[in-house]
């Protein structure tokens, strides 16, 4: 029996492939294999002999079977290793192309400021881009003869023959949305109105379309001090720099009274603008307390309610924050520009994760 064991174990060890191994298995432990033949002889033995030979034969069978299995696994491993050796790839090759989309800075910054103002309770109001001259001017205390009207470089829609109505305008600011929202919702009110506006001007720093955000808050007892706080909070959050200071300067806008131009703190270092430091000031927006006539035009009683309004250029603050040099390029759709200044689709600004990467 030991001979048998020695014979097969050494054959198994020497087997070169799976078919040789199968031949050994049939010869050894197959139905007609040597071990099986030995098993058949058990019947002829005495019970005493059988008690010795039976377990020994079973043990032999098990031993050969495990040797076969082990050898089979080893052969499989060797075959796999052999295959993998031939499966070498040049992984420095480039991948299949995947397009990278991008979000335009105007959209990104609009979402940024929406997130900030939403936290302060401002919702987002929208309105038509073509509007009547009443909403764009008269309701905002800019009557027909007012010099501000001529200074606004307004685009007018053509009027058909026989149509004697005053021509509609492409809104020169998003302020008409304030009036429409006041009419629709009344007071108290907290809104921002972001969107495209139009002025007939084209040079290095002006494009005939650009983007503005206006803010409007109306309540019983809001003052310019609240406005200053809101703006300082906004600028600190937007530029992601703590404690940005603002400076209010008296000015005039027909739709606010008192009116102020607002500068933010900045400095120039080696030709680089640094916001929120130094003792320089840069004008960024116009603001003031809503003129009583404007409240009235929006159907709100100025004796009962008061509030503030402000307006600034979205493209402009985008340029300041992200160091974009030329306004005109915003609307040129140059792929190189879109890819360089654009934002990833999943970089959706929010306050808990931060506005920018």
């Amino acid at each position, binding site marked *: 029996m030991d001979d048998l064991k020695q014979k097969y174990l050494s054959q198994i060890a020497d087997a070169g492939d799976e078919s040789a191994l199968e031949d050994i298995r049939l010869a050894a432990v197959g139905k007609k294999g040597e071990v099986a033949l030995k098993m058949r002889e058990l019947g002829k033995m005495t019970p005493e002999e059988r008690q010795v030979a039976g377990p020994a034969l079973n043990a032999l069978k098990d031993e050969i079977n495990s040797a076969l299995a082990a050898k089979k696994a080893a052969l499989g491993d060797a075959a796999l290793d052999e295959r993998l050796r031939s499966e070498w790839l040049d992984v420095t090759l480039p991948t299949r192309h995947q397009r990278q989309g991008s979000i*335009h800075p105007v959209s990104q910054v609009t979402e940024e400021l929406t997130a900030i103002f939403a936290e302060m309770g401002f919702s987002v109001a929208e309105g038509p881009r073509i509007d009547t001259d009443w909403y764009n001017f008269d309701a905002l205390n800019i009557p027909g003869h007012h010099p*501000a009207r001529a200074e606004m470089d307004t685009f007018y829609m053509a009027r*058909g023959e026989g149509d004697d109505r005053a021509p509609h305008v492409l809104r020169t600011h998003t302020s008409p949305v304030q009036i429409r929202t006041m009419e629709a919702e009344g007071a108290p009110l907290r809104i921002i109105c972001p969107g495209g506006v139009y002025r007939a001007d084209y040079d290095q720093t002006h494009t005939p379309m650009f983007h503005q955000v206006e803010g409007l808050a109306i309540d019983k007892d809001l003052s310019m001090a609240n406005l200053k706080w809101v703006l300082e909070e906004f600028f600190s959050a937007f530029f992601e720099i703590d404690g940005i200071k603002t400076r209010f300067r008296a000015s005039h806008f027909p739709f606010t009274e008192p009116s102020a*131009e607002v500068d933010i703190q900045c400095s120039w270092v080696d030709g680089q603008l640094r916001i929120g430091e130094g003792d320089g000031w840069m004008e960024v927006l116009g603001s003031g*307390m809503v003129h009583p006539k404007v409240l009235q035009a929006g159907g709100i009683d100025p004796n009962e309610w008061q509030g503030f309004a402000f307006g600034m250029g979205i493209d402009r603050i985008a340029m300041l924050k992200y160091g974009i040099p030329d306004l005109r390029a915003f609307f*040129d759709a140059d792929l190189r520009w879109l890819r360089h200044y654009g934002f990833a689709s999943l970089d959706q600004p929010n306050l808990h994760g931060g506005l920018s990467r």
Partner: protein
Amino acid sequence: MKFTLSWLKDHLDTTASIDEITYALTDLGLEVEGVENPAAKLADFTLGYVQTAEKHPDADRLNVCQVETDEGVMQIICGAPNARAGITVVVAKPGVYVPGIDTTIGVGKIRGVESFGMMASEREMELSEEHDGIIELPSGKPGDRFIDWLAENDPAKVDPVIEIAITPNRPDALGVRGIARDLAARGLGKLKPRDCDAVEGSFASPIGVSIDEDTLDGCPVFYGRVIRGVKNGPSPQWLQDCLRAIGLRPISFLVDVTNFFTFDRNRPLHVFDADKVKGNLRVHRAKGGEEIAALDEKTYTLQAGQMVISDDSGVESIAGIMGGEATGVTEDTVNVFVESAYWDPVQIAYAGRALKINSDARYRFERGVDPAWTPYGIEHATRMILDHAGGEPSEVVVAGQVPDTRRAYKLDAAKVQSLVGMTIPESDQRQTLTALGFQLDGDMAQVPSWRPDVQGEADLVEEVARIASLTQLQGKPLPRLTTGVPRPVLSPMQRRVVTARRTAAALGYNECVTYSFIDQASAALFGGGTDETRLENPISSDMSHMRPDLLPGLLQAAARNQARGFADMALFEVGPAFSGGEPGEEQIMVSGLLVGRTGPRDVHGAARAVDVFDAKADAEAVLSAIGAPAKVQILRGAAEWWHPGRHGKICLGPKKVLGVFGEVHPRVLAAMDVKGPAMAFTIYPAEVPMPRKSGATRPALQISDLQAVERDFAFVVDADVEALTLVNAAKGADKSLIDDVRVFDEFIGGSLGEGKKSLAITVRLQPSDKTLKDADIEAVGAKVVEKVTKATGGVLRG
């Protein structure tokens, strides 16, 4: 508005520095746009006294001078012909920058002799073009600063010029006196009294004045007088200096007087040559069509209703805007008629705009000139003319009367606190208003006649806060609307637009923002370009019409990028497109454009030309992201800018179009210079029905443990049968058992013959209560075949 520091000091007694003044101006709302300070560049020049001057040993034209300076006697070589002993000169010592020659002086040797500086000419210091010799001063001590000497002896040369921007509400600051008044109220000095007594006339004005009844609302008052026997000519130097400093050209004394008061007091005046006026002057409205040659040497045709001043010969002046050439004053004028009138701002604004004349007079009258100062204007002008040009004044003729602009508003001292948020004692508030010319009677503040902008209590607050300085404002937190966590603020539609945008970007599209206006031809290709959407005053013909669709702008962007060498691109835009010219005739669209290939050539052979199914997939992805239902119809018959056979409208019923995808019509591409083909989609987010939201809870998940079974079928159908019809028919075979039907193969032609195709589908069966037996599957299969055959006329492919 420009003025010089000395002009300001003519009205303001102040010791404030130029920096203090400019800071205060900007802070007061009179924003300083620029300061030109000639003294700044001359600060380092000092006076010197030439003790001796000897010929240079090696140069005939040079002198070696010993010059006494604040740093002792210095040797200076000088080539000026007038360099000689005994004169007081201006010295630039080594290290001083000389602006006229753009050089910093150093110690040098000139032909072997050392020189420690330079003696300067006027041109070298940019004071004038004078360069015949060095400056010789009649006075001054060596070592004194030259600018101090100039300030003392020739102040105009070092007079800083300040330019400020004037907001439309502050016509009073269009006169130097108004600016001085603001500064005085701020505490930067005292406003000087500048009144003058009326000048008695010695004869009746030979020229009378009348105002037509229908013109009194535009010209309530007109003052005039003749001054005879004047000697016109160049103005005195100080007046010429004043005008030149602010960029005006001195013309002749009489004209310069009117310009002076325009800027000094915001009081435009006009002078007629009395000898050229025929008969009396009449203020009236133009009939329309009259012509006048004005002082700017242009001829204007008047429109009916515009105010004019006429004499017996016809129209002689465009009222309040510009005088006429025929009666204009010249150097030879000896008898002059001076006009001081008040013109209504609104009427001047409209007339000036219609005539397109921008004059200093129009600019001021349309913003508002002090009506009450009309009679004083003529007296001040008379006084100045008599002082410098002599002559004899007539009595003043007056037509109409000074309009009554008196009004008063309640000063509520608490309003400054409630509106601005600054605490200013009432006494300070009253003092501020008084300094600005308001008259306080109890708590009523009478508005000065020169402040047409003050129209209510809020204006009083503005004045008080402005003078006190808004820089003192301290921020105060804005209370939250609700306590606790802020609520979301975006409307479902606003969120939808954000989602659509970010989905498109995630699909690999680059977002563009293009102009809302576009050229007529491109607009016309997309169903627009009509008069309804035409701009009256476009800035160029490329931007003449509101865009009817986003695609023309994207296609133009694609053409520009192709011209830059980019062949493959995916662009998108989210924004309004305009169906008409009325407010609200606009709709937000989301459009994507694919041009070229899916990517550059690559080793995997993966890049291929973009096709309609790319655009369809992206359109479906965007729609899905914004909550559109999964079950839609794909219909044909979209607008003509799509390829007629290669597009589809994604619809809920024939009239509810959620979006369109397809290939852009080759003719459109050719017209827009885009190398095609190009695939596109447009989504109309507002058309997607809003979900009936009943909370965030999802329906319970229904899953079966039973094995799903898939069976394939292939049908031969007519080539124009649409796959979706077949799929829907198969799905209808057993709605509870059939989970999904997918097309996995389309085969056209070959053995099928002309006009036929084979569509192969996989039908997935998902039992829910018992395992499917072969018989069940057979039964459903038969039903699928039956339904499909009925719906499409197709047959099961053998």
